[in-house]
């Protein structure tokens, strides 16, 4: 594991935003943090670069305990937190120059990352003239500027049109192929299915165990899903040909399936239902 989080807690005055977050991220994975709006994804992602100052817990990077606000979390990590924000009165290139100057990066790297995100032809335009998708790509460019080992992307597909989403997916997969580890947050199950090799689910300040989509999920037939309205979901499962209902506990439902692409099929069957968590039978004991 390249990155491990243990018992991360963050309170905003009386509100517990992160209650107990513990999971780990494998090297060279595309790790998804799935969760509804307000589940604590962005708060969690702001902890790593020190944007959020006051929190508790432990972070291990390459199995070494990292001190709070350690520079290594900035030197070897690239971030795109929430919506991409730039100095809009400056050009894309000028924005990157500002960041390059404090990242000890030479100017040729600016052209490289602009080329990578396909913005070279608009590099001298003011950012205020950019579309949201272009700003998002520029956000990726700034995160890649110092050639980080790990990329932390907060809802990179958010606000993008279908073409923009396809470009972003292509870009992220390309970065994985270059050996980078990517951790992205999303509230969209489809993003996890299409992009991620591993994922966890955030809900109400807690998270599930990490689940590997490549190995673990596709071998098993039993699944556990956590939903908002279990009764409605059980009805839909019973009506479906692909899934069999086995049992339920509180908001958790155990189902069985022979589907090769369970998440996609679940997404279709449970359309409009709020799904909090998806896990495999190997996690059942721990889960309950």
């Amino acid at each position, binding site marked *: 594991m390249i990155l491990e989080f243990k018992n991360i807690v963050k309170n905003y005055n009386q509100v517990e935003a992160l209650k107990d977050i513990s999971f780990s991220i494998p090297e060279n994975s595309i790790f998804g943090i799935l969760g509804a709006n307000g589940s604590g994804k962005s708060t969690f992602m*702001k902890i790593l*670069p*020190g*944007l*959020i*100052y*006051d929190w508790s817990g432990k972070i291990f990077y390459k199995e070494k305990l990292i001190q709070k606000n350690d*520079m290594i979390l*900035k*030197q070897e*990590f*690239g*971030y*795109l*937190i*929430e*919506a*991409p*924000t*730039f*100095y*809009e*009165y*400056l050009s894309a290139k*000028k924005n990157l120059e*500002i*960041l390059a*100057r*404090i*990242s000890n990066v030479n100017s040729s790297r600016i052209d490289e990352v602009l080329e990578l995100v396909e913005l070279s032809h608009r590099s001298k335009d003011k950012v205020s003239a950019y579309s949201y998708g272009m700003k998002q790509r520029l*956000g990726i460019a*700034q995160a890649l500027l*110092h050639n980080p080992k790990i990329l932390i992307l907060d809802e990179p597909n958010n606000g993008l049109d279908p073409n923009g989403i396809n470009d972003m997916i292509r870009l992220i997969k390309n970065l994985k192929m270059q050996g980078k580890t990517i951790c992205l947050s999303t509230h969209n199950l489809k993003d996890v299915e299409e992009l991620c090799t591993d994922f966890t689910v955030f809900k109400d300040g807690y998270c599930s165990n990490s689940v590997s989509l490549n190995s673990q999920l596709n071998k098993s037939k039993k699944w556990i899903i956590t939903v908002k309205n279990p009764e409605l979901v059980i009805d839909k499962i019973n009506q479906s040909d692909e899934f069999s209902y086995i049992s339920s506990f509180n908001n958790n439902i155990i189902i069985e399936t022979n589907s090769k692409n369970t998440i996609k099929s679940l997404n279709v069957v449970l359309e409009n239902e709020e799904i909090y968590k998806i896990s495999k039978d190997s996690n059942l004991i721990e889960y309950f």
Partner: protein
Amino acid sequence: MINLFYNELIKALYKRRTYISFILITLLIPVVVYAIDYGAVSLETKIYGQMQDSFIFIGSIINGYLSAYLIIAILITHMPFLSTIIPSEIISGEYSKGTFRIYLTRAILRRNVFISKVLVVFLYTTLMMFYFFSFSLFVSYLILGDGELIVFHRGILLLSEDDIIWRFFLGFVFSNLVMITVSSLCLFFSSFSKNSVTPIISTISIVFIGSAISFIPIDIFEMIDPYLFTGYIDIFLLAFHYPIPTNIFFNCFLVCFIWSSLFILAAYYNFTNRDILE
């Protein structure tokens, strides 16, 4: 650190609002100087007043130095407003626009980012004040020429040509010190605020209240006035007294230094400990 400072300079230089104060000064001062030139006779009559009964005046007292003296004396009370333009936005602007979310994820210390911002604020205030003083002198000299400067301090004080420029410089140094204190106050508000308007309004309100305390002749106000930096906004005028009231200049330095330090330290604490949520 140099790179951070350079970045802050770039950010400030590319913003239009940075130039507002310089444009205002550039437009206003020639107009005032021309107005002084145009109304010289009337102005002289007002200055002479009843003194014409006791003295015979030969030549004109209206010259570049008097013009610059009058312009600075009148406009200096408005300079706190201009000195808030950059500090009001330098921290709050980055909060509100969310640019800290990118800038502060780089391998830099918040402490150094803060220092670079403070340096840019001080530089901006100093440049603006220097431009205000030098441009007033330059335009006044260009249009009205030189001569002796007549000021009112314990009667009439006539200052010879070689006794004037250093007094303007002294006035600049201490007026700048007061404006830096105003900028520091604005920076303090900027570190708490999520928009750039609140720091301006808060700062100007405090300057207004402080000035009111200085002008209202009540015992308790007169007692606390020496400890308020707002009481020294017109310290420029004291540079043209004879002898120079060094104790007041020393007090001004001390008061401004202490207030500036307090504002900067409070802003620093808030900036380095604040969660960047926006």
